[in-house]
């Protein structure tokens, strides 16, 4: 961490960048400076204009107004090729790697070292080894990318940028897919990189990480720069307030749970994934009325398949699922839904909404066939419209009309619509999968409070989230899922963040020696 970052030379500067899309100003007169060897955090909610700005700097979009200077030189970046040539590298949130190729092949792709007409893999691998040693990015150049952990894949992405001689790195939400330990490791890598002269723009919406790693913080809201600060001057609360434009209560206010009778009972559940491999390997769970059971785990450890089996979207291989005393093993989604089970799906655009439908149709997606929304087979538009208008009103879904397609809403508002739909049914069990993924802080706060409210009304809540902070702030009990199994179930507060992080990474806690992460 450099306290005197201000005096270092400016490597990248944006002056008065404005970018309009039809109907919105995505960037409104945005200016920023990146100094050599610093980590500049770009903080903002979804839709604040972070991605647009980065895509302009990386040459994917072109600004309507404003100038960009790289190392003091005014330039017009018109393509990623050009930005790479200027030393700007980008690590996207979704990795751009070919799984069936080796690390070396992925890194040299598009920038091949040749020996006559042949690839010179050996020479490339040597350079990759040199880079990985220089920056402490341990990776085997000959490994297949498909065999690597997500954290290592990310390292490959970083090496890919360094291999192209990038000294300005843009990292887009780099910790979204990492375990806490992997995230710590990334912080260490970022430090090494900046110590050796690289400069980093770090895009995120996670406040804790910003305070931990950034030298300077720029906050965007509604396409404008609304504040610039340093970790020394800021707190999580002050940053959140800047992002949202008002005070935000980060801690969810809740009373201790008063659990009632078991509502969801899962015994020995086994579920296969799309590749027919066992993704859930014998899970036992119990969720009682009036409690929130949080399932913590890094994405891809069987949570998706578990939820799909519980909601009837995927057949189970073995085991039983009982909801409110009824055996619903391999029941249809409708049978399960009619028992009073609501499901907030992890992928709202794939499962939770028909994005081309208006809000009205989406507001009755599961109830469309029941009165008053249908009489016999004839739909009752009036009742549907009234219902939708009520949901929009009560759950503060920001939309110009209930008749616009769901695709025209922001992610947060789409999610609020789903939450509204699911929460207004008569409920016994709520299965919320990644309920706040990719949405703004204001909506997160709202949805968290609604979940706690449902719990207090006596609903059993199963919360699945890859964000450990979300589990820690909402759950009464926590189950850690790793490789398709529940490796621990504890009361919230019994284990620290770090201990949970270790469990999520597959370590066990009952060893006498400290565990190597």
């Amino acid at each position, binding site marked *: 961490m450099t306290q005197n970052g201000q005096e270092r030379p400016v490597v990248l500067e944006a002056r008065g960048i404005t970018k309009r899309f*039809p109907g919105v100003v995505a960037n409104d007169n945005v200016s920023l400076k990146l100094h050599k060897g610093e980590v500049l955090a770009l903080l903002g909610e979804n839709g604040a204009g972070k991605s647009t700005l980065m895509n302009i700097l990386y040459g994917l979009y072109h600004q309507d107004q404003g100038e960009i200077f790289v190392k003091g030189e005014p330039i017009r970046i018109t393509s990623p090729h050009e930005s790479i040539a200027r030393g700007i590298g980008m690590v996207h949130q979704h990795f751009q790697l070919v799984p069936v190729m080796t690390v070396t092949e992925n890194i040299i792709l598009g920038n091949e070292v040749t020996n006559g007409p042949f690839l010179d893999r050996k020479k490339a691998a040597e350079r990759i080894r040199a880079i990985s040693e220089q920056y402490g990015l341990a990776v085997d150049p000959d490994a297949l990318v498909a065999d690597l952990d997500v954290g290592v894949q990310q390292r490959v992405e970083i090496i890919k940028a360094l291999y192209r001689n990038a000294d300005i790195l843009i990292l887009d939400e780099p910790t979204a897919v990492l375990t806490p330990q992997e995230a710590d490791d990334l912080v260490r890598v970022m430090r090494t990189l900046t110590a050796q002269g690289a400069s980093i723009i770090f895009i995120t919406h996670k406040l804790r990480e910003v305070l931990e790693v950034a030298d300077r913080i720029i906050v965007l809201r509604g396409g404008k720069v609304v504040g610039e600060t340093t970790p020394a001057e800021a707190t999580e609360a002050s940053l959140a307030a800047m992002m949202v434009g008002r005070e935000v209560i980060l801690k969810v206010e809740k009373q201790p749970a008063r659990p009632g009778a078991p509502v969801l009972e899962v015994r020995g559940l086994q579920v296969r994934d799309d590749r027919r491999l066992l993704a859930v390997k014998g899970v036992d769970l119990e969720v009682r009325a009036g409690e929130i059971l949080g399932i913590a785990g890094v994405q891809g450890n069987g949570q998706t398949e578990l939820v799909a089996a519980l909601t009837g979207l995927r057949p189970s291989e073995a085991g039983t699922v009982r909801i409110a005393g009824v055996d619903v093993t391999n029941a*249809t989604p409708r049978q399960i839904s009619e028992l009073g089970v609501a499901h907030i799906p992890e992928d709202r655009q794939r499962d*939770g909404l028909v994005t*081309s*439908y208006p809000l009205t149709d989406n507001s009755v*997606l599961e109830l*469309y066939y029941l009165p008053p929304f249908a009489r016999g087979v004839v739909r009752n538009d009036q009742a549907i419209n009234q219902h939708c208008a009520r949901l929009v009103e009560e759950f503060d879904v920001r939309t110009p009309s209930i008749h616009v397609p769901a695709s025209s809403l922001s992610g947060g508002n789409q999610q609020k619509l789903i939450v509204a739909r699911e929460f207004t049914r008569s409920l016994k069990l709520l299965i919320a999968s990644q309920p706040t993924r990719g949405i703004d802080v204001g909506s997160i706060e709202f949805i968290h409070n609604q979940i706690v409210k449902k719990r207090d009304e006596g609903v059993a809540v199963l919360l699945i989230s890859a964000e450990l902070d979300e589990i820690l702030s909402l759950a009464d009990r926590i189950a850690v899922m790793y490789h398709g199994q529940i490796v621990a179930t504890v009361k919230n507060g019994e284990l620290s963040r770090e201990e949970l992080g270790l469990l999520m990474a597959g370590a066990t806690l009952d060893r006498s020696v400290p565990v190597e992460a």
Partner: protein
Amino acid sequence: MAQVATETAIRSSVIRQFWDRWSGILVPILAVFSALVVGAFIIGITGADWRAAYIGLWEGAFGSPRALADTVVRSTPFIICGLCVALAFKAGLFNIGAEGQLYAGAVASVVIGTTLQMPAIFHIPATLIAGALGGAAWAAIAGFLKARTGAHEVINTIMLNYIALRMTDWLIRSKTPYILGDPEDTTGARSRLIAETARLPGIQVGSSTILHLGIPLALVLVFVIAWLLYRTTIGFEMRTAGVNPNAARYAGISVPRTIVLAMAFAGALAGVAGAIEVTGVRGSLSADFFSGLGFDAIAVALLARANPVGIIFSGLLWGGLLTGARLMQVRASLSIDVIKIVQALIIMFVAADQIVRFIYRLPKRKPGEETQLSKGWGG
């Protein structure tokens, strides 16, 4: 500078609003226009007079009451089969099988029309319903195979087309024993004539054209299908399964059941179209009766972007092009195949509507606006 940019933004947003509202109609119209322009060039290259040709085409299709009646009669099966394809599109299914379903329906209606004897008030509905059931059953086979095994409906419906055509041919031509064939017909190419009580009533126009009851029935079907799709839970299930099967499953809709149902409904339409042609136009069936009608129906549905009301117009256009072709041929001494070229160009311009958008500088499609056609390949 800023003001200029704002004005541009406002102007482009006005155009965009206009476009959002009217693109559904503009693209097909511009596609037809473009096809006619290119067609004129092709006619010119062959040395003929394109103006005489197009005037002939227009007069032959819409220029006299007789021509208009011919066009309407000719368009009726295109409209109904267009609905058949459009309904399947809406459910995410690419039904290439309207042709086979036409034959299946026509055969069923011939069976009922030739064997049963009852008053017209029962015989006509019975014959039409038989047609609907025949088409529905035939299409449901492809629907069932898709729902059960995931076998692609494009392949299956194409195969079922061949089977239906060859089976119809055999049923008619078989002489030992005679099945549907007419012993009194020396060519052996047509079935027995259906009973007079099964024939659709109509108004005679000119010497050979009858405006039969099937024409108003087609219009009724257009509105029934529009109602089914947009006002009923069944239509909601079909559209949801078509546009987002994952969300449909999530919503508790049985996607396999919906697939079979949608195919059966679609097939019923084609089957009714077959029955109407038998009972309203010919009074019998032969194996070359529909040659290509079921495939043209795909173009009709596509041109109307699967909009039921739009299909009335695209169906009339298709029928008009075929009816007017004869006079065009006489006036400009052209091969009748030119009209096939124009039709093919229309399909090309509609299918590749990005070309139309490029030529006329129209805004690009928004996500989610794609024609349903491409969905069918998703499996």
